[in-house]
């Protein structure tokens, strides 16, 4: 499903826009509308965070979303209920930390994902070394386990990762945690180049917030961009009709994904 989406977009000559929000932020009730607003704006896939109390890979903006969500009563049970109730055409991914998966039972977690139409799982604190159990369950259920590649990742590690990679590769554009930045790191281009011969689609995340960023990244050869903090910021501020603002930002970013592809 994920890779199919990428190849459809490729045929259309577009980069993919993957939008992240945290489920339950600001309240569980609003998640459905928020996801729809993102898709309306042009998001090709939506990554929906399942909040964990100790999100070590996230910066202050997404930590804020997680805090709001947990305070509003978000739980994994509720999460799967909300996601099951979504009625969307685009692929959905869950992003969470490994302890929530482990505690639910890896098997149950993956089957819950499957049941809720989640087709990809992103776990920032699960390097390839520790991924065996989750990976084998994902494989069984046909759910993609998304792996990360960072600027620091060595060639042997890339090789290892590629053995298990499916859906897409999550390219971390720079050292650091999630959060928007003013520019796109130069290391992004280098990383994309290092992976130029790789078949699995490559999406770049961490720090992308503007149309120009998306444009630049897609132009450099990435197949998609992942944008989180910029959306979450709008939700955090909640000024005026914030759902329209989400749609608006998605539209702009998607434009960047299209124009970037055109300029390759």
């Amino acid at each position: 499903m994920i890779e199919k989406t990428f190849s459809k977009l490729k045929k259309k000559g577009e980069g993919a826009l993957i939008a992240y929000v945290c489920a339950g932020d600001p309240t569980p009730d609003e998640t459905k509308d928020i996801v729809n607003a993102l898709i309306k704006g042009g998001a090709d896939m939506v990554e929906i965070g399942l909040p964990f109390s100790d999100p070590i890979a996230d910066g202050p903006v997404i930590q804020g979303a997680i805090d709001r969500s947990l305070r509003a009563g978000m739980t994994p049970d509720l999460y799967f209920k909300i996601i099951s109730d979504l009625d969307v055409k685009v692929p959905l991914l869950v992003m969470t930390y490994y302890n929530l998966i482990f505690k639910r039972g890896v098997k149950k977690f993956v089957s819950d994902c499957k049941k809720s139409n989640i087709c990809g799982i992103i776990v920032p604190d699960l390097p390839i070394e520790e991924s065996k159990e989750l990976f084998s369950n994902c494989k069984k259920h046909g759910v993609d386990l998304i792996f990360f590649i960072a600027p620091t990742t060595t060639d042997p590690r890339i090789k290892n990762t590629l053995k298990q990679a499916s859906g897409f590769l999550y390219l971390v554009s720079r050292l650091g945690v999630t959060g928007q930045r003013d520019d796109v790191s130069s290391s992004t281009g280098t990383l994309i180049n290092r992976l130029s011969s790789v078949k699995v689609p490559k999406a770049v995340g961490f720090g992308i917030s503007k149309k120009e960023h998306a444009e630049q990244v897609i132009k450099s050869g990435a197949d998609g961009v992942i944008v989180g903090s910029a959306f979450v910021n709008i939700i955090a501020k909640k000024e005026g009709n914030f759902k329209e603002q989400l749609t608006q930002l998605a539209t702009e970013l998607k434009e960047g994904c299209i124009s970037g592809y055109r300029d390759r």
Partner: protein
Amino acid sequence: MKGKFGRYGGQFVPEILMPAIEELIEGYERYKADQKFTKELNFYSREFAGRPTPLYHAKRLSEAYGAKIYLKREDLVHGGAHKLNNTLGQALLAKYMGKERIIAETGAGQHGTATAMAGAMLGIKIEVYMGSKDMERQRMNVYRMELLGAKVIPVESGSKTLKDAINEALRDWVSNVEDTYYLIGSIVGPHPYPEIVRDFQSVIGKETKEQILKCEKRLPDSIVACTGGGSNSIGIFYPFIEDDVKLFAIEAGGESLKKTDKVAYHSASLCQGEEGILHGARTKILQNEYGQILESHSIAAGLDYSGVGPELSHLSEIGRINSGNICDNDALEAFYELSRKKGIIPALESSHAVSYVLKHAKELGDLIVINLSGRGDKDVEIVARLNRGDKA
């Protein structure tokens, strides 16, 4: 399996960090076998840290409690706790590995202070993450770190205590992994930290073994240590692992062993925790039914942590060590008792181990060693405040 203790341990960290961790594994393998490194570390241990520390036969205590009780005097280590054994080792390792900046997290401030001391001595820049709530509780240690030239960075996220300071240190490391060494203060975190910290702390147990054999001509029946992350425990236990010696890891029973959906009123992860993943390792942790980490509680800031070292989880599971816990009030009692009866003010952390022995002396055999992991100067103000009825 590499980096595992039974099924515990591992490396649950962002991919960004994995190369740094591999570099650390390599660096550690290399320098721990390096004579120059070992010689230099031994020099600092002896002349800077003040090792070996005495193994002190506490006569009046022994008489009062009907067993021969020895105290391993880590309270006499420079800085006031066993923490320097580890920070000296790791800071020197960082130096040999060419790192120019060290970050650390701290709860009570003891590990931060010990890191700052090692950094000042070796001329390495130190930045320490500390929960803003802990900064309040342990002001004196904040001053100490600053005096030692370290930068203390307040952490305002989460429960604003040790767990959150570790989160923040990990975030910093993710951002600055290329020139930064993350110096973890206990046997927690991803492999190889639990192993490195254990090795550097094992000096406690090695000395204890030599000393007890010299003065008693036999091994002790029991060894008792307080357990937060578990570094002083494993430090004294490890050299006795193969021996017929009972080992007791004593956790903070806090106000009670109860918990809610968000908060545990204790820090007894070994006794009360469930298997999970926290801060890079699979271990026993305090979590709710969904896997959210609970805020922990203890009167002793250094025990106030929701996890515990994976090696201890394993050793506890296979029955090689026993776990126990002591509540705030009993620890306080032991704090007073040792101060008044022995002229030694123990750290509130260490007071948990002392209390366990005072309460269970009969079951621990004739010859007991308590690891007195630190001195209580840092706690005097807190206890004085408690006595005035203020909230800690």
